[in-house]
């Protein structure tokens, strides 16, 4: 009689409940606050306010700048490392990969505190270079998220394609540019989205590395500390919109790319 109770569909129910309670419900609350004022009346002033206030726009730019520079730094560091690792035939490869991932096992604030001490030792007063330190801290924190997807895509790459390129007369560099790089694009894109988006809001790194300028995360916090839940919710909602847009864009490119790969 109880044979069917654990059918495949019903096994999904715990997650469905989780989704309803902790994802959808908060989202509706967020939307409700974003489009109401303190008295609970409908308003779009929060939305227009965001796009007319030089502070919020400036903060968006600043966060964007930090995230963009962090992503570029991560990419420049991660791609060569991942590439060399993926094509090398080192016996100790798995250990090296573990070394890259290991920082993720150590508590985040502990790592940043250590970084703070190292930077203080190198620079003297950290406060002279807040932007640089922030980018460094974030790159340090997010690097594994960039290395891993790139490494996975490159190591899964079909070696026959490279052989074919060589047979057709392509040099080492040309084969890399025409075959490896385009085919590793999905890995790069998922790495970029895993670094760029958190870097826009991770204000803990800023706080710990003495950057006194707000980024999006800290701006939302300051709105809530000033009891302005409506304005804060609107900023969070706009960020969510940016994230969605970004994900859609990268997915579009990714799909196109895999289709192109199949054609090749």
């Amino acid at each position, binding site marked *: 009689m109880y044979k069917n109770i654990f059918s495949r569909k019903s096994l999904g129910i715990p997650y469905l409940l989780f989704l309803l309670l902790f994802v959808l419900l908060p989202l509706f609350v967020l939307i409700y606050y974003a489009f109401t004022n303190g008295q609970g009346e409908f308003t779009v002033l929060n939305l227009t306010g965001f796009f007319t206030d030089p502070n919020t726009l400036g*903060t968006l730019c600043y966060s964007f700048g930090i995230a963009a520079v962090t992503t570029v730094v991560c990419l420049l560091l991660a791609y060569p490392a991942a590439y060399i690792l993926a094509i090398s035939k080192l016996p100790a490869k798995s250990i090296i990969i573990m070394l890259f991932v290991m920082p993720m096992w150590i508590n985040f604030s502990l790592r940043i505190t250590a970084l703070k001490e190292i930077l203080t030792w190198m620079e003297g007063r950290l406060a002279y270079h*807040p932007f640089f330190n922030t980018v460094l801290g974030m790159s340090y924190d997010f690097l594994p998220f960039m290395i891993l997807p790139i490494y996975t895509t490159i190591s899964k790459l079909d070696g026959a394609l490279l052989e074919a390129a060589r047979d057709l007369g392509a040099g080492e560099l040309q084969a890399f540019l025409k075959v490896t790089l385009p085919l590793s694009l999905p890995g790069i894109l998922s790495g970029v989205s895993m670094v760029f988006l958190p870097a826009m809001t991770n204000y803990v790194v800023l706080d710990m590395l003495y*950057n*006194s300028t707000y980024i999006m995360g800290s701006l939302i916090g300051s709105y809530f500390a000033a009891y302005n839940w409506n304005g804060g919710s609107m900023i969070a909602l706009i960020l969510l919109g940016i994230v969605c847009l970004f994900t859609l864009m990268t997915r579009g490119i990714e799909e196109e790319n895999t289709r192109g790969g199949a054609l090749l």
Partner: protein
Amino acid sequence: MRVEKKKKAALYFALCAILFLFLLFPETVLRAESDEKEERQVTLRVCNWEEYIDLGGWDEEDTIDLDSGDIIGVNSMIEDFTDWYYENYGIRVKVEYSTFGTNEDLYNMLTLGDTYDLVCPSEYMIMKLMTEDRLVPLSDDFFDVSDKNNYYINGVSPYIHSIFENNEIQGKPWSDYAAGYMWGITGIVYNPALVSTEDASSWKILNNPAYYRQITIKDNVRDSYFAAVGAVKSELLTSREFLESPDYQKNLEREMNDTSEETIAEVQEYLQDVKNNAYSFETDSGKADMVTGKVAANYQWSGDSVYTLDQADEDDFPLSFAVPEESTNIYFDGWVMLKSGIDSDEAKQHAAEAFINFNSRADNVIRNMNYIGYTSVISGGEDRRIFEYADWCYGAEEDERDTSDYDLGYFFSEDGDDGKEYIITAPSDQVYRQLFSQYPSEEAMSRAALMVCFDEEQTQAINQMWINVRCYNIHDVPVWVWIVAAIGFGILISAGCRKALEKRKS
């Protein structure tokens, strides 16, 4: 068959739902049955600052060996209160103790519907809660001096009590609703090897270019506002005419709580200057950075200053504390009972008031002060143990040569005890160090001003000012950044277009 399957799925769904609810709110589900068993149990929900009460577990060597007897925290204050309450009143009280991080967090928690019976916010939040009519007044029994268990009213420093009685909000004095817990003032902790006492004794140190990138400031709009007002009005506040006016106290409080448009604009300009000059605004790192020598000075609350100086002393790294000449902000944290929690339950209110009283008993005051470093509002009344403790902490050894007399009469003396003196003979440097932070001198207290609870309009203006200071203004984005961004964007777009064209061709 189909119907049965659906039924089973529904059953499974219900099971999961119950399990979920149970995980989320175990108390609510369980309470339904256990409620009837114990009748004479009161639950008291207390919400206090983090690290703001003695949690016990002291080592033997931490014992405070006063002449009048040893004091040591074996159990947590909460356990001790439960036992004490049962012994005295025969009722088991269950204390559900939780903590909050900032006054604003507490307020948001209350707005979201968290219920507490007894909370310990700062004075401006107490004023806000009073204005919003969310508090239960303290009962008459609480102020009955003949009851020896009423440690609060029998022990509170008259100096503090008069402030609680003389400050009114909507025609009612604070003391009707709030019982003080800890108090202090704001000032500058500095490294005397790098900063002169004179420089540290003015709020203008915060934007002093001599200390470029060497000072940290509290990341908190009220404290920053106070310091900035002190700095921009420095000349007026230290002028002889202002100091000698018979209405000095009144004028001082008016000036320090000035929220006129011009002042806010001046403050904004000043704080922008500070942001460009200081090491950073800090939420939590100030104390540690002072001790490790990363910064030369730090804007601090006096209670934290005691802790910082103690920590630095362990590394033989002497620091000092200064109270700016312009003015200092006197602050309080106090116990208030919430309407939403107490809900006219007399047993609960009695337990809440007893909790305040228990924490005001001299030995418990000493335990709390020793544990958290802040200064209690309790002077002890006839019980001289708290003064004895201050002397035990800071008094000079007998063979000490360079000593000064430090008079704490303003805080400890009672109406009835004429003739008694409250003077600590301390090593001379203590006059600028821990003793000064723990019990500021009467001279420093003479320029103490309360910071009122601003109304909504003022709060909004000040918060906007703060956001203006902290945010990167879009007008400040340099031209080359726009150009780089435009080029980057152009490349992306053109690459996308080429891809699309290629696709169409193929």
